[in-house]
C-alpha cells in the first residue's frame, strides 16, 4: 500500500519564489513511488516540518562505518522515529569529489543511479569541506552504497578527528591567475596521507586547502589548518598596450581611483603616457590591480606557494586566521612537489605527537609559541611571518648574538 505523505504547510511556503527550491526536490523524491527511497523521504519531510513547527533539530549521532575504514559516514538516528519510522536512520556518506569539482555527466548519472538504488536520492554538492554528501541512507545500505561508489572510482572523505577532505580552486584548469598546479599539490598531499583520513587517530581534525593565488577562492587562510596559496617572487607581468587600452576605455580618473589609489602599498603610478609604473619590491601580491585589469596585468613568472597554518573558527580559543609559515616555496619541479608533500607529512606528524586532545594545530602553535613550532619543523624565522617585531619588552635575549648569526647565515645561503 502506498504510504501517505505528511502535511507540510510550513515547508510548502518554500516552494514559491525564483530560487531553486530544495523542498520541491525532496517532494519529487518522496512522490517517486517506484524508488526505494520514497517512503524514507515522506517521513523525512514529516520530521523536517516538525522541526519547522517546533524550532528544534531531532537527529542524534552514533557509530556507522564501512568495512576497512573508521570514518567518512555521518550517522544520524531520529529522536522522533516513533512518528517518522521510515527515516529513523538517515546517514550521510562523505565522498571526495574529483579535485576542482569537475564532473562528466556519466559520473554524475552513475552517482544518481547508485544513490537512488541504495539511498534517498538526495545529494548535496558540496559540503563546506568540499565533500559530495550522499544524504539519507539506512545502516544496512551504507556498505552496498559505498561499495558501488568505490567501484566507480570514488573514495570516502574525512570525518571526526582525522585528515579531512580537501578543496582546491578551479586554478590551472581555467584561470590565468593560477600560480601552481593545484590538482597535483592537492592529490599528492592528500593521497599520500590517506591513512590519516580513513582511520581517524589524530588529536582533532586537520584540513588542507589549495588556492592558486592570493584571491584565495577556497577560503584557505581562515578555513584550513594548512593553506597553500599560489604566489610569485619576481616582477608582475605588465602588457603596457593593454594598460593603455584600459585607460582609454575607462578614463584616467577611474583608472587612478580604482587601481592606483587602491594599491595597499602605494606601489603603482600612472605615467603621463598612460603606461603603468610598478614598484615591484613594494608590491605585496594582493591581486587587486590584476583583478581589475586581468588582460593587462598578470602574476610574475617565478611562481610558487605561500604556506599559512592555524586557520580555524571559534572553538575553543576563538577565531584564528592562518599565519605565514613558509613565505615562499618554489613549486615547479617534481622535487619541489615532493618537498611540499614531505613538509605536509612532517606537520601532520608534529600535530599527532604534540597537540592536546581536541586541539587544532593553530591552538597548538598558539600554546607553544610560533618560534618553538618553527624550531620543531626546522623552518627559519622570517620577517614575513609577523606584522611587526614584538612590542613587549618581556623577553630574555642572552643568546641574541647566536640567533643573529643564524639570520645572517641564512641570508647568505638564500642569496646563493
Amino acid at each position: 500500500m502506498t504510504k501517505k505523505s505528511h502535511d507540510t504547510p510550513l515547508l510548502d511556503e518554500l516552494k514559491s519564489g525564483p530560487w531553486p527550491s530544495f523542498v520541491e526536490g525532496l517532494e519529487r523524491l518522496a512522490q517517486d513511488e517506484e524508488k526505494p527511497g520514497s517512503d524514507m523521504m515522506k517521513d523525512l519531510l514529516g520530521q523536517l516540518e516538525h522541526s519547522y513547527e517546533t524550532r528544534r533539530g531531532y537527529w542524534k549521532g552514533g557509530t556507522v562505518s564501512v568495512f576497512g575504514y573508521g570514518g567518512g559516514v555521518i550517522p544520524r538516528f531520529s529522536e522522533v522515529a516513533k512518528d517518522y519510522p521510515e527515516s529513523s536512520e538517515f546517514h550521510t556518506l562523505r565522498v571526495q569529489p574529483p579535485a576542482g569539482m569537475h564532473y562528466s555527466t556519466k559520473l554524475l548519472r552513475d552517482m544518481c543511479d547508485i544513490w537512488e538504488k541504495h539511498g534517498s536520492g538526495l545529494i548535496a554538492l558540496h559540503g563546506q569541506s568540499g565533500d559530495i554528501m550522499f544524504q539519507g541512507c539506512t545502516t544496512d545500505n551504507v556498505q552496498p552504497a559505498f561499495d558501488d561508489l568505490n567501484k566507480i572510482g570514488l573514495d570516502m572523505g574525512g570525518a571526526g578527528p582525522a585528515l579531512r577532505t580537501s578543496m582546491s580552486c578551479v586554478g590551472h584548469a581555467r584561470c590565468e591567475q593560477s600560480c601552481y598546479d593545484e590538482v597535483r599539490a592537492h592529490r599528492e598531499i592528500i593521497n599520500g596521507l590517506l591513512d590519516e583520513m580513513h582511520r581517524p587517530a589524530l588529536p582533532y581534525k586537520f584540513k588542507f586547502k589549495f588556492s592558486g593565488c592570493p584571491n584565495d577562492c577556497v577560503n584557505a587562510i581562515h578555513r584550513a589548518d594548512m593553506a597553500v596559496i599560489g604566489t610569485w617572487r619576481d616582477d608582475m607581468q605588465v602588457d603596457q598596450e593593454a594598460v593603455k587600452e584600459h585607460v582609454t576605455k575607462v578614463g584616467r580618473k577611474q583608472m587612478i581611483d580604482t587601481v592606483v589609489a587602491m594599491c595597499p602599498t602605494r606601489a603603482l603610478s600612472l605615467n603621463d603616457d598612460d603606461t603603468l609604473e610598478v614598484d615591484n619590491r613594494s608590491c605585496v601580491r594582493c591581486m587587486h590591480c590584476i583583478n581589475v585589469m586581468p588582460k593587462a596585468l598578470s602574476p610574475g613568472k617565478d611562481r610558487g606557494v605561500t604556506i599559512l597554518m592555524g586557520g580555524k573558527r571559534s572553538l575553543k580559543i576563538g577565531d584564528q586566521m592562518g599565519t605565514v609559515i613558509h613565505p615562499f616555496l618554489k613549486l615547479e619541479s617534481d622535487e619541489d612537489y615532493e618537498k611540499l608533500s614531505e613538509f605536509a607529512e612532517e606537520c601532520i606528524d608534529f600535530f599527532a605527537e604534540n597537540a592536546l586532545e581536541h586541539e587544532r594545530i593553530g591552538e597548538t602553535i598558539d600554546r607553544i609559541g610560533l618560534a618553538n613550532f618553527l624550531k620543531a619543523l626546522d623552518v627559519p624565522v622570517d620577517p614575513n611571518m609577523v606584522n611587526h617585531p614584538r612590542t613587549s619588552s618581556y623577553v630574555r635575549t642572552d643568546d641574541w648574538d647566536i640567533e643573529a648569526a643564524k639570520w645572517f647565515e641564512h641570508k647568505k645561503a638564500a642569496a646563493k
Partner: protein
Amino acid sequence: MNDAVMPRRPDEHGVPDPFPYMHPTLRENYGNWSYHERPRPGVLHHVAHSGDEIWTVRAGTQRQMDVGTIRKLCELADEFADGFMRFTTRSNAEFMVTSLDKTGPLIEKLNEAGFPVGGTGNSLSMISHTQGWLHCDIPGTDASGVVKSLMDELHHEFTHEEMPNRVRMTTSCCQINCGGQGDIAINVQYTKPPKINHDLVANVCERPAVVARCPVAAIRPAMVNGKPSLEVDEKKCICCGACYPPCPPMQINGDDSTKLAIWVGGKHSNARSKPTFHKLVAANLPNNPPRWPEVAAIVKRILYAYKEDGQAWERLGEWIERIGWARFFELTDLAFTKHQIDDWRGARNSLNASAHLHF
C-alpha cells in the same frame, strides 16, 4: 566468516584524478590561460595562450539536490557543454561551452528549468550554507530554508553585477559557524545557558571531556538527585553551546534561547586589505521559519546601504572601514550596544587607541 559474507575491501583511490572529468578545452589548456572577461552577468570568457576560448555559464542551485535536479543539469551539459560540468565552492553549477553562440540558448534553458544565471563579478553569489534541521545533530535553525528565503528576495543581486565588489554571504546553524566568514553572515547566537537533563548525563556523556570543552571553565562535575552529573555556573556561561555536541543532555537549543545574529565585514581574499573576520552588528533576532522575515529585512538594509554608498571595488568591510562604524550604524539604523565591545582574548586590539574618529 565464510567468503560469501566477507565484506568487500575498499580500493583506497583517494582524491579522484579530475582530468577524465574535465572539459576537453580546459584539459588541453591546463595551466596555460591568458586572460578572461565577463561578456554579461553569469558568463565568463576565458582565452588561452593557444588561442582556444571557453565561455562559462554559471547557474545557482539549491545545493541539496534530488537526483532529478542533477539529471536535469546533466541533460543541459550534454546538450551544450560536451557532457562536462563543474561546481564552484558555493554550489553554483558551471557549464563550459566552446562558442559564444551557445551561451544564449543555454541560459534560456537554464532559466526555463528554474536555475538563475549569475553569481559572477561584482554580484551576490549563492549563500554558502550548512546542514541545519535537515541533517545536523546540533542545529539551532535550518540552513536550506534560510538560504532559499534570502536568495528568493535577493535574486536580482545574483543575476546582476551591480554591487561595488563581490558579496559573499554565509549562514550557520550554531555558533561553531561551519558556514565560515562572510561579507554578511547570518549565524545562530544562543542567549541562554544549556538546560541539563540530569538523568541522562552519567550514561551519555564523558564528563571530564565536557568539562574540558568549556571555553570559560563554567562546567564542573556534580551529584544531582544522587546521580553523577554536571552543573553550569550560569553567571560565567557565555552560551556558546560547545558542551552540547559532546553531551546532548546539555540542551542549548530552545524557543527562548535560539536567536539569530548578523555579522558583517568578513573577507577571505587578500585583495587590497588582509583577510578579516566578520563583526557583530545585530543579535537576538527571532528564529522564525519558514522564511525568517526579520533577518531578511536587516540583511537587505545592510546590503542596500552598501550598494548605495560603497565605492567601486570596496568590499563591504572596506566600505565600513572608510565611512566608520558610527556612520554604518546610522545608515543601517542598527544599534551599537555594550555587547559589541569585545572582551575575549586579544580584545584590546579591537579598541580604538588613537584620536582617529568619525563624526
